[in-house]
């Protein structure tokens, strides 16, 4: 009898073990492939949003080589109004060096897109608008869905979306908008085709007249696109590279609160349910009560940080928010000359901050958004020099100044900073040296 019981028990335990073990999820392709050490064979960078001088967003593309080897770039410039013509050239960037490409010098057109194929990894790029130094990072791939908030077609403002197709596949997209007047899906903005390696520009002002807060959603029905939004307010131009996902929480680390500045956070809600957004503002030693706003469904709403009676003027505030629905946001910050438009910083495992204008940074912070402390590797190199690496320990929710940590006396001018953690918990933010402070956000490049 004992052996009978034993055998039965073994069989039942075996079946139970099978059931329990099958609760584990087998590793996915992404987990399997990214676990091994990469050696990039080639990478790509796509930049769009720059225009001709007449277009108001005239500028340049700066390539930053953060690797210890020279990199060869094959750049292709495409332009709207060039009748399909493209110009391809090759450049080589030395280790830890930068290189500049001005599209207007290469090809004549109205709006530009630059595609660069790099013979390896470690190269990043950002667009810099000449007159007001607004920056926007270049992308490494196209996307199939894109969101950008804070656009305005009010009097004196114009908002244009530039779509660049980096692949050989004919792409098709449609645009939806969410504004204070509600949802719009203009028919002329649906099913627009973008030829391979071509670009298309859409002026939102033609469909949405005199709208102050617009959230735009681009859905790519076929292929993938690199999308950027040009926001012109008077003489101030910004390139908003938007985001690819919605979020129920976020953080804006460097929101200016000083006198003579303005800062507005624009929330766009694409869902069918209203969103209740709760904002926490951390500013020095001040205790600021939690703010709450409601964002109606399919619409956009703003929260003015500066000027705000509740929020004192005391430097850069750290604004974090949570929402009951997935939303997308943008920060409009500026001074007397006009606003800069920047998307909400994303959370990642590695970021790169590079000074491409030689001015340095007014502030540069790294925030740990997780609930556990994390070690952050910080590598700083001056242009053309090897980096020096140190480790920074960040507590849960802690923000640290990179300028203070690195002890840089020149505010990281002509320098590149790379931060890296073990998991995607870091938010990097920086602003230029301006008066008043904090009104000009600097682009942060995705380090991987």
């Amino acid at each position: 009898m004992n052996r009978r019981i034993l055998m039965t028990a073994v069989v039942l335990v075996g079946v139970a073990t099978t059931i329990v073990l099958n609760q584990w999820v087998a590793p996915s392709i992404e987990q399997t492939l990214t676990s091994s050490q990469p050696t990039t064979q080639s990478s790509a960078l796509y930049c769009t949003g720059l225009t001709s001088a007449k277009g108001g967003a005239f500028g340049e593309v700066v390539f930053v080589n953060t690797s210890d080897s020279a990199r060869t770039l094959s750049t292709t410039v495409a332009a709207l109004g060039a009748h399909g013509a493209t110009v391809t050239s090759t450049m080589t960037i030395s280790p830890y060096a930068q290189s500049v490409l001005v599209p207007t010098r290469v090809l004549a057109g109205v709006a530009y897109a630059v595609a660069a194929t790099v013979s390896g990894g470690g190269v990043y790029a950002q667009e810099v608008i000449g007159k007001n130094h607004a920056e926007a990072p270049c992308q490494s791939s196209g996307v199939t869905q894109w969101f950008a908030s804070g656009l305005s077609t009010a009097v004196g403002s114009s908002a244009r979306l530039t779509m660049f197709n980096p692949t050989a596949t004919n792409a098709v997209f449609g645009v939806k908008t969410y504004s204070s007047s509600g949802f719009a899906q203009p028919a002329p903005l649906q099913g627009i085709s973008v030829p391979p390696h071509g670009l298309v520009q859409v002026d939102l002002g033609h469909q949405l007249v005199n709208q102050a807060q617009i959230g735009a959603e681009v859905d790519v029905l076929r292929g993938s696109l690199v999308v950027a939004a040009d926001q012109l307010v008077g003489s101030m131009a910004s390139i908003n590279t938007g985001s690819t996902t919605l979020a129920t929480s976020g953080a804006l680390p460097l929101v200016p609160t000083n006198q003579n500045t303005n800062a507005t956070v624009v929330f766009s809600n694409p869902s069918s349910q209203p969103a209740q957004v709760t904002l926490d503002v951390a500013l020095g030693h001040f205790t600021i009560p939690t703010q709450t706003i409601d964002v109606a469904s399919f619409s956009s709403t703003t929260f003015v940080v500066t000027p705000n009676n509740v929020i004192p003027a005391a430097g850069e505030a750290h604004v974090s928010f949570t929402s009951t629905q997935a939303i997308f946001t943008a920060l409009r910050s500026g001074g007397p000359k006009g606003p800069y438009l920047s998307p909400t910083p994303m959370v990642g495992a590695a970021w790169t901050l590079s000074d491409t204008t030689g001015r340095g940074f007014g502030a540069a912070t790294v925030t740990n958004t997780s609930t556990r402390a994390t070690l952050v590797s910080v590598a700083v190199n001056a242009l053309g020099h090897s980096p020096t690496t140190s480790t920074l320990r960040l507590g849960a929710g802690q923000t640290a100044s990179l300028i203070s940590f690195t002890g840089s006396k020149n505010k990281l001018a002509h320098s590149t900073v790379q931060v890296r953690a073990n998991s995607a918990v870091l938010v990097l933010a920086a602003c230029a040296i301006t008066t008043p402070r904090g009104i000009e956000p600097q682009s942060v490049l995705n380090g991987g």
Partner: protein
Amino acid sequence: MDTRAPAVVAVVVTTGSAPGLEATLASLTAQSYEELSLLVLANGEAENVQARVASVAPTAFVKILEENRGYAAACNEGSLMVEGSAFFLFCHDDVRLDSDVVQLMVEAAFRTNAGVVTPKMVAYDDAMALQHVGQTCDRFGVVRERVEPGEIDHGQQDLERDVFVAPGGVTLIRSDLFVTLRGYDPLIPIMGEDLDFCWRAQSAGARILVAPQARVAHRETVAKNGRPVTALSTRGVSRQTLQRRHQLLVVATGWGRGRTFTTLLFLFVMDGMELLLGAIGGDLERASAIIGSWWWLFGNRRRILERRARRRDVLVLSDDELHRLQVGGASRLQRFVVVLMREGFDRARGVLPHAPQVVEAGDEHDRGVGFAAAFAEEEECDEGMGTLEGPSSRPARILTSFRSQLGLLVAVALLWCLGSRNLVAMHLPLIGRLAPLDSWWTTWRHFFASWSPNGVGTGDPGMPGYGLLGFAGTFVFGRMGILPRMALIFAVPLGALGMSRLLKNRVSNRARVVGVIAYLALPTGFNMIAQGRVDVLVVVSGLPFVLRRLFDLLAVPGFRSSPYPEPVPFGHRGWRVTEAGQRMSLIMGLATMSAFAPATLVLAAIIILGVTLSRWIAPDGSSGVPPWRLLGSLLFNVAIFLLPMTYDTFVAGRQGFSLFGIARGASSLPSWSHLLRACDGLFGAGWWGWLLPAVSLIALFIARRERWNLVATTSTIAVLTLLVITTTGHHWTGSFSPDLDVLLCLYGAMVAVGAAVAVSAIELDLYDVGFGWRQLSAAVAVLALLLASIPLVVATGSGRFDLPTTSVAESLGPLHPGGNGGYRILWLGDPSILPVPGWLVAPGLEAATTMNGLPGGNELFTPPGAGTSSVIINALQLALRGQTVSLGELLAPAGISAVVVLNTSTPQVSGPPTAIVRPVATSVTTALDQQTGLALQLTTPSVSVYTNANYSGIFRQVNPSSGVPVPVFSDFSASGPLTPHWTKVQAGLAPASAFALDVGGQPTGRKVESGWSPTFTVPSTTTKWSGHISLHQFPLNGLLALFTLGMWLIIWLGFGWIHRLEWLFTGRRRLPEELS
């Protein structure tokens, strides 16, 4: 006074020792008929005939024939020696005539004008027991008696009447008739000469009469195997063969042309069925008799024509008139069916029932029902005529009789035929492993080829599966398209047959039937048919046979109760049943299955481990061969039998584990509930899929004694299988990831065995325990078994077991890139979806290439190691990691013109799902979308197709000014014109060292680019040369293939064929005594 009695010459043919000769002669000399002369013919080796005859019949004339050419020839010889007689009385040498036999027979002949008269034949030792009172026959030449065996003579057969056949023994024939018909046919030396003569006599219009007043006792020593048949042309031939031969001859020459054709056709069909039954039942003697008889008929076709010509000379009766003298129908078939229904299959086949088992003291009487028990004495006890001691209960009567069991099996077989009706002729979709096979010759060539097109090409030896396919194709006369259909239709029933043999003598026949139906109803078979996985279906069909032999070798309780026979030399008859022979049979079975599904070797290891573990947990006191030695022996020998595959595996290194299977993605792994139901597809996913596993589990609780030992073993194996599936499916064993569907075959087989054991346990193990949970669980088990068969019925609705009628691959538009140069298609998808085998890129993503179009017969098997084709795998991995955007450029040297990403093998339609969907991870399509050189041509929920903008052909010539390669040659030919002054020709073929380019008949220089691709330097000239790329490779693969074939042939000879074919070499035929 002169008598007017006609002269009768009694011709007695004696052969051998003839112990009854004296009695025969004495009865003839005692005849009251006066005009009777006696002629004794000693056929061949008769002993002391003259002295023996002289002692009893001194007036008899004796002639000794030098050779024994048979009874018929001797009679003819005797007739030639006689002149002036009115009748011949042909007698055997083992008869005893009553004193008035000749008188009565002659009177009957005169009275009725009969040409042939036969007496009443009685048993030699009992004059009251009737043997023959004339005979009749049917149109197929099968003789039927007019009396029942052992019938007592009460005068019921004492009327003179016409009969069709006068049986041999004592036959009175009118001399003129005998001469007209040219006597007996010497081609029928014995056994059937009476039928033949009487048939011809009937055709000639002669009457054949039985004179029942004349009584003859006949010992029938030859017919009853009392004496060997020693006629010259009968040596080495069995009685059954002789009888069949002569019946065929009679039928082939006894009818007119039309009726001969139809009769022979019917007879061919019936013999075919009998051959099949004989083969199934292992009745090789019957099978060889059938084949031998038809072959003999074919070999004597000239004689047949001569006989037919002679028949026409004497023909009086038409076919219809002749047929009216016979009995209708097919006697043999009728007799078979009657005996089958009454006495069972073994009796109907002529096999005696098994000896009754010895009941050991203390053991309960086995109440298992069997064939005989259905109509055994217990039936009378059922009617209350007897009393039973001990427990008065007995097995339930449902499904106990052979008739009911056979009826159910026939119904299930018909159901299966109904369910597979459309598989016979439908177009087979390009899914699973249903890629169209090449021709028979081309398939053999793949086995011997020095190069195969997998990936970017490989010089690895051809996989043994090609050889086995070619061999199988021989039996279908090269119609290779039949083979996958046969696998789809017959694999599962063949496996069910194997399950029946596995369970034979281990459980009751009722339980066997349940086990067979359970095996048929398992989800594994249906799902593999629906997915076109003929490789797994090979495992489904062969696994029970392998299981039986493994259990025998491991002495699993109930499987081998007696030791193996004494060893027999290799190649001799009887070697197969020895331990060595059984082991070799197992090895060959495993090798055959492993050639198509190498994961079968993992099954063997699991089975051996499971038996060992079960024995360790619950010792059963038995011990077979040491398990690890057996496993090592099996693996080693299978590796030898599949030497090309073994070589490929070793050369592949770590990638060699992918021989057994490629890891699936997380989303395509069955959940635990699907695993427990042995379900990897659409069939079996419902609640009813739990029924059979539940019944199998119940068996573990209620079985006792040897049944419990068996179910404990099978349960251990089943659990082990599940654990292996789970650990390998979650990639916890690294690159070792055996094919999940093959593993599920083993699990399913264990469930079917468990179901059969449950039935047997219900029959035998519940009677002496009190009423409780066991009885309740038994009731649940019975109900579950009834319900479990319903899905089997439902599955037959489509007529193709839901095998799709089309496939995504075929529905794609032309993938030809246009232009020359040849092209490859890169297929990406889950390993269970792709219609062509490939290599692992990442778990859940397999990559494979096809050359110049859709998958075909040259891409059925892939070596485990990617070899040079790793360039494609590495490029894909770079793209998936985001480390390249130039995938198109990286794939261009391989001539890849398009990348096809499959999410399902069949186009999706609205409504209930008709095919499994196993989409690739979105990161794959995202990565491909980001490649600068890949353009998305088509995207649907089923498939995405990207064309490669950098494609430039497999064969290309480089423009020296632009550096851009341009396709040259054609898709199917590696030769063609070259552009003058373009000095560089590239070929996307590996290995580079195996290829050479000849330009204008001159060889060119070669170097390697990109690490693998051959590049040839062509002289710069204005002449428009023609180039030709050819393969230069030492035929090592062919030699290896030849060696492998030789190995199989040698081992096949070991199964007694050396013995049988010895005469080919020695020229000496063995005598029957030597053969037996």
